[in-house]
């Protein structure tokens, strides 16, 4: 009886928690159809629902510039952080070297530091040191900061995947006379790849969604989250809702397609 209850209890709570996670997303979606006047806070029954914001998502001034900036920073930061983090993860899992413990701490501590401290500390060097060499606050300082905080998350994700690999698979490859290069590229790398892709997705979402660090190091550059935050006082345009919800659907579609491709490949083997 108690087991029956705990079984059902977990599932019921799980469904409720998922609904809770989706509630503000649904709210964002609904208000993307609002025929708002000044601010998109109260539902306007006159002329709503309307598709006009979906037909012209760039209609609000600045919203698409901010989106493009965020996407550019997200892609650059993701590529660089994924490469650097993956290399680090391989060094930390597969090799013994002096300074390994220190390196582990160096990777871990940025994750244990509140974002506001990271933002504040970067601001002090960008303002007091880097402006002298011509690096003003803006696009590149944001990108540098995003790469920095993404590296640790990439290392953790790739490390977990590497550690869960069965070492006997690689030994088998070597027993079959594969050299170290062939073993790496034809056995190890494909097995670690899902972890690397996951790390890249995580990096992109962290970069795309970051507000606190970005706000400290951005100067006059506006990313999508900063656009939303700044326009909050005057009223967020419904176009921001359109873009926010589209990103959510896009991410969902991307991950689900990835899952389906993965399953198809597995079942065809």
């Amino acid at each position: 009886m108690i087991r029956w209850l705990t079984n059902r209890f977990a599932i019921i709570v799980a469904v409720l928690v998922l609904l809770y996670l989706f509630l503000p997303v649904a709210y964002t979606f609904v208000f993307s159809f609002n025929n708002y006047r000044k601010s998109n806070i109260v539902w306007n029954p006159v002329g709503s629902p309307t598709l006009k914001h979906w037909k012209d998502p760039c209609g609000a001034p600045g919203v698409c510039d901010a989106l493009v900036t965020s996407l550019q920073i997200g892609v650059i930061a993701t590529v660089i952080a994924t490469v650097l983090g993956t290399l680090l993860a391989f060094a930390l899992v597969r090799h013994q070297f002096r300074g390994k413990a220190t390196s582990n701490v160096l990777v871990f501590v940025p994750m244990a530091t509140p974002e506001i401290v990271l933002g504040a500390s970067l601001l002090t060097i960008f303002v007091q040191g880097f402006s002298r060499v011509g690096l003003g606050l803006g696009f590149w300082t944001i990108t540098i900061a995003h790469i920095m905080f993404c590296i640790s998350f990439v290392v953790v994700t790739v490390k977990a995947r590497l550690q869960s690999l069965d070492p006997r698979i690689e030994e088998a490859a070597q027993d079959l006379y594969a050299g170290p290069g062939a073993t790496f590229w034809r056995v190890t790398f494909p097995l670690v790849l899902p972890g690397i892709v996951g790390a890249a997705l995580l990096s992109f979402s962290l970069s795309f969604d970051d507000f606190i660090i970005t706000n400290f190091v951005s100067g006059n550059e506006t990313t999508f989250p900063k656009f939303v935050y700044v326009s909050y006082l005057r009223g967020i345009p419904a176009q921001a809702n359109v873009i926010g919800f589209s990103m959510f659907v896009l991410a969902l579609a991307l991950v689900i397609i990835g899952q389906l491709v993965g399953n198809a490949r597995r079942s065809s083997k």
Partner: protein
Amino acid sequence: MSALAHAGSAGGAPAGDTPPQEREGRSWLPYLLLVPGALWLLVFFVVPLVQLFTVSLQSQFPGYPGYYYRDVNFSNYLTALTDFAPQFGRSLLFAGLATFFAFCLAYPLAYAMAFKAGRWRNIMLIAVIAPFFTSFILRTVAWRQILADEGPVASTLNALHLLPGGHITETWAAVVAGLTYNFLPFMVLPIYASLERADHRVIEAGGDLYANGFTTFRTVTLPMSMPGVLAGTLLTFIPAAGDYVNADLLGADDTKMVGNVIESQFFKVLGGFPVAAALSFTLMALILAMVFVYVRRFGTEELV
């Protein structure tokens, strides 16, 4: 740091350290893998923290607000701690409450994902991460509208006379609710990961030994998931303690957290840099101290 120092002397690594199957002369490989990322973290993480520390010791130029000179002035720390003690306390309290509520919500979800979901498991995993892409600020603003006085939650509670002050927004409850919501995925994912790795046969054995559901959970399942709970607690508590967006968008002046103070000292108060730096540094030291105590107590396998 020493990682770099060692990287410089990579050639001098003793040959006896490398495993026998590894070829001679490849001892530089780990350093080659290590250096680019480690260098990035040194230049853009360690150096800025050192700089922040020196800023926290600066003094203001008398008569020239907004100008500082290098100094070893610990009074900034005294100002930071005496003037902003309430905000500090609130940050820790709110983050602690949010972590507790996030744990209560996350555990059943992670448990259902790991043991009950079957083929729905991956879909649920995606569902936990997907809201991230809608933008943290947009979702927090949505919460403000949902919890607003004329919104569905507050008006229902008011109609039932269940809301003492008449408001949810502009109160600590809204801030804690926002923090709980925004950092919930950071609690779900590590707990799920450790439950998924747990050996299901051990849990079944608990039942076979005539333990009831609750006893099995308390003595077998929960201890096995402790590394995930530990990681989740840190990953939720740390960003929540440093957050200022939730307090800004959902709270009022009397619910401001230390993040709000740091932000406004940096951007809105002329000459607030040293005190803001001192506040940041105190927050970081406090959190790192807690992390190290926690890690000492429970082990590091899930973290480092």
